[in-house]
């Protein structure tokens, strides 16, 4: 039946989710571009040699993705097409993002913007930015 119960069955999972949402919502300095849960979701990490950005952009033609680094800011934009709904079809759940998107990440100062590489696999865009050689920690040999 196309029927949603008023009372979810797993109360603990619901409480868990509520708590997580509260934590997100109580952020004292939210981003100027709105909720952190935009599209695409992003993970950012780093090593002493590189900065790695993972953008979760499933179902997007890699050719329609645009990634740019300018003045230490990475901008990722593109468009995700909505699935075509056949005539006389009913949409019961509509949660997936469709439309144009744009996300901006500021990068640290020591990156080498000329050596960026980007790879799209399984719906994830991995942008790998090496740090400048001079900025990498160097071990000093003691004689």
């Amino acid at each position: 039946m196309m029927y949603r119960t008023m009372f979810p069955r797993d109360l603990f999972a619901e409480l868990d989710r509520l708590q997580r949402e509260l934590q997100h919502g109580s952020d004292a300095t939210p981003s100027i571009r709105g909720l952190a849960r935009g599209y695409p979701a992003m993970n950012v990490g780093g090593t002493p040699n590189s900065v790695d950005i993972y953008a979760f952009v499933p179902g997007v033609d890699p050719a329609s993705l645009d990634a740019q680094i300018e003045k230490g800011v990475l901008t990722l934009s593109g468009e995700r097409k909505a699935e075509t709904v056949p005539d006389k079809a009913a949409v019961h759940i509509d949660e997936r993002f469709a439309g144009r998107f744009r996300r901006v990440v500021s990068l640290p100062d020591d990156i080498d913007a000329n050596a960026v590489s980007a790879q799209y696999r399984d719906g994830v865009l991995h942008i790998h930015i090496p740090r400048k050689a001079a900025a990498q920690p160097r071990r000093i040999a003691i004689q």
Partner: protein
Amino acid sequence: MSETKTPDAPRAEAALLPPVDVIEDAGGITLYADLPGVPKDKLHLHVDADTLTIEGEIQLDMPEGMDSSHAEVSLPRYRRVFTLSKELDSEQVAAEFNQGVLKLRIPKAAHLQPRRVEIRVA
């Protein structure tokens, strides 16, 4: 098709809830789910009686010793469970998985397909 949460699922394995679209036409139901980061061999679909479970494990190629400084996808796993309704033919589920998007087609049982009733004017 309605969503349920299995109370007996191990809660230790926390999982992300993937966003889905569910579209129903006369012939059946089409479900799209976003599962970015899941390679084909880490996607698991189970149809057990009238329960459909979508599960996937995320695998990212991370450089050694990477420290995460910001994570919106903070768990390595997706899971979502749906209850199928009786008129759906769970034997005939067809799945496609492409660039992190799962497309499932669940047809309605053949004898339950809508049939047009011819009306003749006497």
